[in-house]
């Protein structure tokens, strides 16, 4: 959608062998009510599943959750893989309990930005902020012709 209209469509999922399903349900509910179309892959999603889906759905962003602590291992080379598959430009977010243990968030953020994620979120992030950022990031990455020409407020587009 976001490729061919002004809607905001994202692919959401929990990466790796991670079964934490609750945050995923909350994110889906809150983002949808915030005017974002969510294609939810649920838990235990591989990098390729994310990318296949984002291509098929022409999504504006991929939102990766990692809750269980293996984020460092599972997210390795995600952006590179996107580039290989022709999605070099897609907005990439990651959030959750990204690493093992309680660590300084600034270091975690730097680490995941190095992996090519555009934004990195802690579990306590305010989801209203995420929605605003997501919309503006997707708008920024749209093909030039479509940029800055917002159609209807996105909230009205969704159920």
């Amino acid at each position: 959608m976001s490729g061919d209209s002004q809607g905001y469509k994202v692919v959401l999922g929990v990466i790796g062998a991670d079964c934490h399903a609750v945050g995923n349900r909350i994110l889906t509910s809150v983002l949808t009510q915030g005017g974002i179309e969510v294609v939810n892959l649920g838990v235990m999603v591989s990098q390729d599943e994310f990318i296949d889906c984002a291509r098929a759905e022409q999504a504006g962003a991929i939102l990766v959750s990692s809750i269980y602590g293996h984020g460092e291992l599972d997210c390795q080379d995600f952006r590179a893989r996107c580039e290989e598959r022709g999605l070099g430009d897609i907005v990439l977010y990651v959030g959750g309990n990204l690493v093992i243990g309680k660590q300084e968030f600034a270091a975690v953020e730097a680490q995941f930005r190095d992996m090519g994620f555009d934004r990195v979120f802690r579990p306590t992030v305010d989801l209203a902020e995420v929605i605003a950022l997501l919309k503006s990031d997707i708008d920024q990455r749209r093909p030039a012709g479509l940029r800055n020409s917002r159609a209807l407020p996105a909230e009205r587009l969704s159920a």
Partner: protein
Amino acid sequence: MTDLNNRRLDAAAFDAERGEVLQGWATGAGVCFADALRVQEALPVEKRFAVALAEADAQGHTLLQPRAGVALVREHVALLNGLSPYCDVLPTTIDAYTRHNRYAEAQEGIDRSRAAGTSLLNGFPAVNHGVEGCRRLVEALEKPVQVRHGTPDARLLAEITLAAGFSSFEGGGISYNIPYAKHVPLERSIRHWQYCDRLVGRFEEAGISINREPFGPLTGTLVPPFVSHVVAILEGLLALEQGVKCITLGYGQAGNVAQDIAALRSLRRLANHYFLNAGFTDYRLTTVFHQWMGGFPEDESQATAVICLGALVARQARATKIIVKTPHEASGVPTLEANQAGLKATRQMVNMISDQNRVDSPDIQMEIDVIEAEVHAVMREILRLGGGDVARGAVLAFAAGVMDVPFAPAKANLGKLTPVRDNHGAIRLFDVGNVPLPADVLAFHRDKIAERARAERRDPSFNMVVDDVRAISASKLVGRPA
């Protein structure tokens, strides 16, 4: 549904299957049942889980157990020995790759952890460390140690860890599938857990008691007590059938004190009822209370308060064991120190409550009545669906939504049942889905939710549920509108 049923596995077929199982990863070759028996026989009494539980049960004590697991044997030994003075029984939490039999990825995690000088795995990859690594671990400890995981197919893990001297094994065919997996058919995980239970049965027959603990809290999030009780009873029956004798049934704190006490009290009574009705008499039943299993507050003092409420309720309900959380819960796998902190707070609370009057009230009795009515209704339908066979009944019940776990990731779960808190924070049913509860019970749930809706001047909706899920992290029990 292939040929699943609740019968004791045939000896020859079991042996044949074992051959295959042990080939699942290179370390399987290190397993030998005769050696395993010798290892278990040689365990001193203070390292036997079943003994610790029996003593606690007899003396009315409550045991404390943390969660803990890191990638490498030496680090894991140090971690457990650092926890040992503060707890009664030890855990070994298994990493998430091993839980999904992804041993190659687990190996990569081991290797990269070695290189990084810190654990990159969220648990101890016992299969990769093999019997030899696990024995080194058990030998270095001074208390009983249990395998805690979340593995739909835990056959190889059970073979290796029990051969190494672990004396308790958590999990079950339902409780380690529905909350932990996505695509695993329920008949398959139940069948694989019959194997694990049969293995434990074989130890029992050789005079070695191994404790089995179905995983009580399921998804840990707004699970109505009857839902987890039914799973506990089903897994208990499945285990007993395979020769398990020492069973610990679990329950995860839901937050409302009266409902939580009622839940733990009714669990023991209901389980005995169904076990005895099914003809089992020769078993030892204990209970385990899990401190709050949902999202925690990030702040460590607030997290400690959540831990303390769980400790109080567990002791008021006289649980045999408490699974203890840590002030790091919301953030990540805890450090040794954070884990000790959770244990110390829990111990202090348990000790302060230990001697106090038994807590009883009309509210607690009412909750017990409701839970019992719910469990009986669902169990009746499961037995009907299975034609008296709980294994087949369980599979058919989940397929039909007769059993339904909220927030579960498994496709085998319908996901229509939707819980919400009532005005006092007890968990009620907003949408019962296809679960066949009696009309009076449904009316009770409806009234309770209506009371809250009135108090909040809003209609019950999924938003209310979302608010409830996020409430404790935001320092509340009930997710009220701002």
